[in-house]
């Protein structure tokens, strides 16, 4: 009853083609954005903004990128953190070496650099698939991090490749308070998420899904495999690259190549598995889950079970819970949290009259 699209007639092509065709969805998204843009900055304290909300948004963007590649185009990648690193270091160098470089342009260029690198490492996907490709993306992970550490030009000759992100400034306004940083990240993520949502329902997204479901069949019906796969790598890496730049500029501030290690890649992969492979909202749900879970576990161990658990178990609890949850989700709900939300919507459609 609450979520029923009956009676919503589309009388023009424009209204038929909107991103959210159902009125309740539109209202929901507007409310969500309203809360995120207006209420949250006013209510959340500094810890929430800096420690939870900004990383949540940054990781959502990275998960979104990986979800485009893995969830929609079906190419498993274990190198997302490396593409984030490319974005972060490229943005840093654009800001550093070109006078008067606008911040947002630097972010975008960082994303473009990541996309170019992504295309290079996506080339093997034309010949190989599945596990072989997953291993090939590990090459990107190790090679890029090594390159950024060894070639000191990338980090402006600092020791062990550490970079300190410059001040964020747009048209003279300096983003230095947590609220302003949060709003900047939120704006970028909102725009890019809407773009992704639009992309995956259009011709591009359908081509990706066709390749994912069966690439030979997709080729037979006239989808250009090379073009489609490389585009998926480029777009995915672009998203990861921008996420990396935001990670450096808005979240951590000072980053080193080692910060973008394999563990981070796995973390992003876990986000899309738990959130939902092949779903835009899944990237956000998964990211929220992965960001909040360690905090929740810490509280649980320190306050609730204080002293009850031996320290060896407590310190490894996170690893075990992560691993266990991945297996649990893959067995019980392979489509992740996003699917649970879908089921809720189905229920809401009938509620309170189930027949």
């Amino acid at each position: 009853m609450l979520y029923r699209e009956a009676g919503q007639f589309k009388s023009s092509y424009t209204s038929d083609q909107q991103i959210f065709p159902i009125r309740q969805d539109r209202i929901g998204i507007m409310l969500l954005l309203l809360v995120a843009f207006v209420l949250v900055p006013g209510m959340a304290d500094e810890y929430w903004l800096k420690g939870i909300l900004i990383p949540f948004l940054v990781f959502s963007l990275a998960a979104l990128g990986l979800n485009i590649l893995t969830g929609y185009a079906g190419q498993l990648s274990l190198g997302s953190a490396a593409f984030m690193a490319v974005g972060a270091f490229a943005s840093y160098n654009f800001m550093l070496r070109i006078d008067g470089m606008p911040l947002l342009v630097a972010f975008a260029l960082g994303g473009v650099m990541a996309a170019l690198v992504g295309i290079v490492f996506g080339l093997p996907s034309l010949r190989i698939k599945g596990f072989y490709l997953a291993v090939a993306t590990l090459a990107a992970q190790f090679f890029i991090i090594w390159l950024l550490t060894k070639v000191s030009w990338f980090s402006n000759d600092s020791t062990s490749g550490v970079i300190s992100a410059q001040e964020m400034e747009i048209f003279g306004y300096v983003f230095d308070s947590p609220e302003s940083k949060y709003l900047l990240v939120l704006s970028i993520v909102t725009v890019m998420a809407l773009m992704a949502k639009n992309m995956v329902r259009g011709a591009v997204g359908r081509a990706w899904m066709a390749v994912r479901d069966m690439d030979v069949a997709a080729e037979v019906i006239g989808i250009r495999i090379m073009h489609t796969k490389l585009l998926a790598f480029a777009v995915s890496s672009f998203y990861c690259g921008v996420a990396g730049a935001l990670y450096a500029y808005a979240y951590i501030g000072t980053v080193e190549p080692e910060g973008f290690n394999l563990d981070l890649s796995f973390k992003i992969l876990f986000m899309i598995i738990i959130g939902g492979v092949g779903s835009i909202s899944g990237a956000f749900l998964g990211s929220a889950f992965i960001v909040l879970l360690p905090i929740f576990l810490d509280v649980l161990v320190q306050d609730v079970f204080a002293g009850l658990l031996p320290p060896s178990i407590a310190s490894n609890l996170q690893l075990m819970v992560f691993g266990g949850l991945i297996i649990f989700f893959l067995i019980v709900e392979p489509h992740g949290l996003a699917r649970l939300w879908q089921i809720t919507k189905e229920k809401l459609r009938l509620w309170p009259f189930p027949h």
Partner: protein
Amino acid sequence: MQFFFEVLIGGLLSGVMYSFVALGFVLIYKASGVFNFAQGAMVFFAALTFVGILETGVPFWLALILAFGAMVILGIATERIVLRPMVNQPPIALFMATIGLTFLIEGLAQAMWGSSVRGLDLGIQDEPIAWIMDATDIGVSKFDLFAAGVAAVLVTALALFFQYTRVGRALRAVADDHQAALSIGIPLQTIWRIVWAVAGFVALVAGLIWGARNGVQFALTFTALKALPVLILGGFTSVPGAIVGGLIIGSTEKLAEVYLGAHVGGGIDAWFPYILALGFLLVRPEGLFGEKHIDRV
């Protein structure tokens, strides 16, 4: 030239160590089509369990048997809890499940035995063999040679097991075609349990050798990452491929580090095997000895 040979031999012997881990991957992949990312974690778990049991004062052989028992239990539990509910899922989902399994096993091992670095002494010194040193001036580590010997025994034993025993035949049948194997009455779940137990045994051997070399520590899990390019090179389904791939990766990695790494700042052995394997894949996507894959709609 002497130096070249020394590096080459050292590389070949360290390649044997990669082959150990790759072997475990191949066994499971052949029999169940699962790409078991957790093999490295199993190596870590096995070595840590063995050392942990040894520390309680249990004699060496008993500890070996107990650790093997732990690996069998782990294998059976994996089959029951992870694989069986995921039958008919796409292979990539199973692969991601084994990544989850990796974290679970790593956490479990450290929760049980603590996360400090332990030494492991197998009674073989890591020193050059004197008479080879005298004759040719090339240092060949006694320990490495021992590891190579163990690898040879292990591979021979596995080959005999696969070729001449009833269970081995069943394993090969399952590897060939799950459904056909099922239809002639081979119990798939039993076979899987056996395969995971055998992979656990291989992990135990790998863990002992690696642990004696570098100490039993968390870094053992990274052996899996070293074994992946070996697999790509050798093909996922071939035992000889795992050995040959290991030798190629081990030797080229060391040679590249010595001759190329010096010019670019070193540390290239972290990625060189991957790039090598990647370049190789572009020419031969199924690896050296892998089965050619034909796509059908």
